């Protein structure tokens, strides 16, 4: 739990020396509590206070960057249990397992699936983020060989090297020197050796145990050996245990500031049945996983999981927006109807979906209203006659369509007169109030 300003104040020198740039120690303490200042500004603070404050001000779930370069992914930094309280920070990493028992061509095929997995959805680029190489063969040479294939064919993709054999881990991790891989396998049997490997190679260490007690003891031990960056696996495989352990880990970190479990969580969702696997991954996405390992990444599965991840990690305070422009639905001609709505992503999805259902090729002008829905945008003065008129004029649509008719949402029927005044030569038609009235409305016009 973060300390309050007053609790921090008690630990400061209380000299009001102003060396930190704040008028009083109390003012400085308040800034510290709000994380708007850092403790190093105070030259006189005691070592004890530094230790207490340093620990208290560290984020409850340790921030870790996995991989390097433009495909690196951030993990951890979470501050809440429920997304309505505050945005979930770092979307969970989706990784595909590649076993070192596969042939080179099969490994290459999987790598290519990862490299071509990127999709664009509501302006965000989404993809399978990482590869988890598993030492299924139990053979060091095979593991190393597979690691080399991955390193040469997907040099920028973050990699998890999964083996409990320290010699294999050491051999493979050296192939990814400087690339911040995860070495996954420290357990109670090999913790010291694995910690040394991770430390020497500046790798992230995956820590696995069979209970939360054992896991806490292990991370503390590893930390004392000098490894700070860890991802943790509670041993949960079944959905029931994934949700239970992930929940207890997140609670311990956030509500109790329990440092030994304040690390990103990795879950293994692999199942024989791909759809079942997708749903286990969905459980993990909703409930606190930072990395989910999958055994297959079919396109339909990726789309569903990427979308769920995006939904869960959306900022609840900031509406999702789509780009302002005139969207073509179907293959509109110069005579096709033109409708207008706001750029709240839900509004756009629902309106465009209903237009597509109508099978009437159309254009949909989506106007930037800071992500507000039609009525809210109108009430907030962002969806007004003059703004609509200016948008239509500047959009260049007059060169694209022959007609001069704009269909507006029924909820803003009141605007039709004033838009006609401001948008010379245009006729304004009032459409249905709800999007689900659009198919009947459009079909009725087309008939």
């Amino acid at each position, binding site marked *: 739990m973060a300390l309050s300003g007053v609790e921090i104040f008690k630990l400061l020198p209380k000299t009001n020396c102003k060396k930190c740039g704040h008028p009083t120690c109390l003012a400085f303490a308040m800034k510290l509590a709000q994380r708007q200042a850092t403790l190093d500004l105070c030259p006189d603070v005691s070592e004890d206070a530094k230790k207490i404050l340093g620990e208290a001000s560290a984020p409850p779930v340790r921030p870790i960057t996995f991989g390097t370069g433009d495909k690196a992914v951030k993990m951890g930094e979470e501050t809440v249990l429920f997304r309505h309280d505050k945005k979930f920070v770092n979307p969970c990493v989706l990784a595909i397992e590649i076993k070192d028992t596969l042939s080179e061509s099969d490994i290459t095929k999987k790598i290519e699936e990862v490299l071509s997995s990127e999709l664009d*959805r509501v302006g965000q680029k989404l993809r399978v983020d990482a590869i988890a190489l598993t030492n299924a063969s139990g053979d060091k040479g095979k593991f190393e060989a597979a690691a080399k294939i991955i390193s040469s064919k997907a040099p920028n993709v973050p990699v998890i090297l999964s083996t409990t054999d320290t010699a294999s881990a050491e051999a493979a991790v050296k192939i990814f020197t400087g690339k911040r891989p995860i070495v996954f396998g420290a357990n109670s049997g090999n913790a010291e050796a694995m910690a040394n490997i991770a430390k020497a190679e500046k790798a992230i260490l995956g820590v696995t145990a069979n209970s939360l007690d054992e896991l*806490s003891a292990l991370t503390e031990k590893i930390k004392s050996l000098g490894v700070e960056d860890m991802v943790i696996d509670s041993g949960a495989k079944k959905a029931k245990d994934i949700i239970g352990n992930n929940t207890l880990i997140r609670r311990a970190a956030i509500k109790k500031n329990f440092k030994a479990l304040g690390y990103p969580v990795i879950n293994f969702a692999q199942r024989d049945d791909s759809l079942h696997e997708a749903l286990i991954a969905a459980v993990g996405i909703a409930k606190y996983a930072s990395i989910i390992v999958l055994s297959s990444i079919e*396109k339909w599965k990726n789309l569903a999981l990427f979308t769920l991840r995006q939904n869960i990690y959306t900022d609840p305070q900031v509406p999702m927006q789509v780009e302002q422009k005139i969207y073509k639905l179907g293959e509109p001609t110069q005579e096709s109807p033109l409708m207008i709505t706001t750029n709240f992503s839900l509004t756009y999805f629902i309106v465009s979906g209903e237009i597509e259902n109508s099978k009437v090729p159309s254009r949909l002008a989506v106007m930037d209203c800071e992500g507000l829905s039609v009525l809210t945008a109108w009430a907030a003065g962002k969806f007004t006659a003059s703004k609509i008129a200016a948008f239509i004029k500047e959009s260049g649509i007059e060169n694209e369509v022959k007609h001069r008719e704009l269909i507006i949402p029924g909820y803003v029927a009141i605007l039709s007169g004033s838009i006609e005044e401001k948008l010379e030569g245009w006729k304004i038609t009032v459409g249905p109030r709800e999007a689900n009235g659009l198919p009947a409305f459009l079909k009725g016009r087309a008939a």
Partner: protein
Amino acid sequence: MAFVAPKETYSGKVYQVNAGTGANALSFGGENVLPFNSFEGTVPNKPLIAYEIQDIPPADWPENVQKPYSSVSGDPVTWAKFCQDTLKAKAIALRLIGTHPDRENRSPEDAAKTVKDVLSAINVPLIILGSNNAEKDAPVLIAAAEASKDKNCIIGKAQEANYKTIAAAAMANNHKLIAMSELDINLSKQLNILITQMGFDKERLITDPMCSALGYGLEYTYSVMERIRLAALTQNDLTMQPPMLADVGMYVWKIKETQAPESEVPLWGNAEERGIAWEATTATALLMSGAELLIMRHPKAVEAVGKVIEELGG
């Protein structure tokens, strides 16, 4: 520092609601913890999935979800029996969509007959849904409630505009009632209060905070559900304690992701698997936020979600 499991004890719990009669009657809800957190409380029942059927052939359903029912969906009775006997449905949700004025505008009497026919053919619990036309649903659901008197069905959906008549009909005929409001925890609470003020037993209610499909506002439904559940458990808010419904199929099987052929969107992959995954993923996410009753369409999606429910409970 030794690990101490940070378990929670809540002051409130979710009402347990049962539906149906006889040996196949079923209960859902009843837990005193957040979804599937059985490590710190009791979860007496598993969520219940009902197969959606309707009174008229599903011409408006996308082809991939019409297909499994192509030989039975011409008649609601055959369709219902197929769900119960072949698909082993634990419950059936009959949507009287044909009563909608813009569809076939079927009469309340027609609806009552369909309900009677379906009920006489099945023995699993029945959910009876209107066409979501607030005005028409009132007479339709009154007729449906009377036609199914004492069968302990779930009737819905009562909304702000029509709750009085529908709640009265559910009460007079000994049914459970779905109360739906539009994605707002306060509206949901208010509707539950209004309905209980009529003398309707709050323990016979089911809350529908309005479903949304994955990618189409799912996060709103998800968070409204989570907030309702937290209010029920942490604040012991009696008006927020009915179990919750996720009416998944209807919202999922109308969006582009469940319809567009792979030829149009090659990056989205196989359309049939995508549609099934979309319905199952939406349902699974809403289980995580607190849904206890799901209405779904595709048999493979139902099967997959059923498997996850087993894994979450066992």
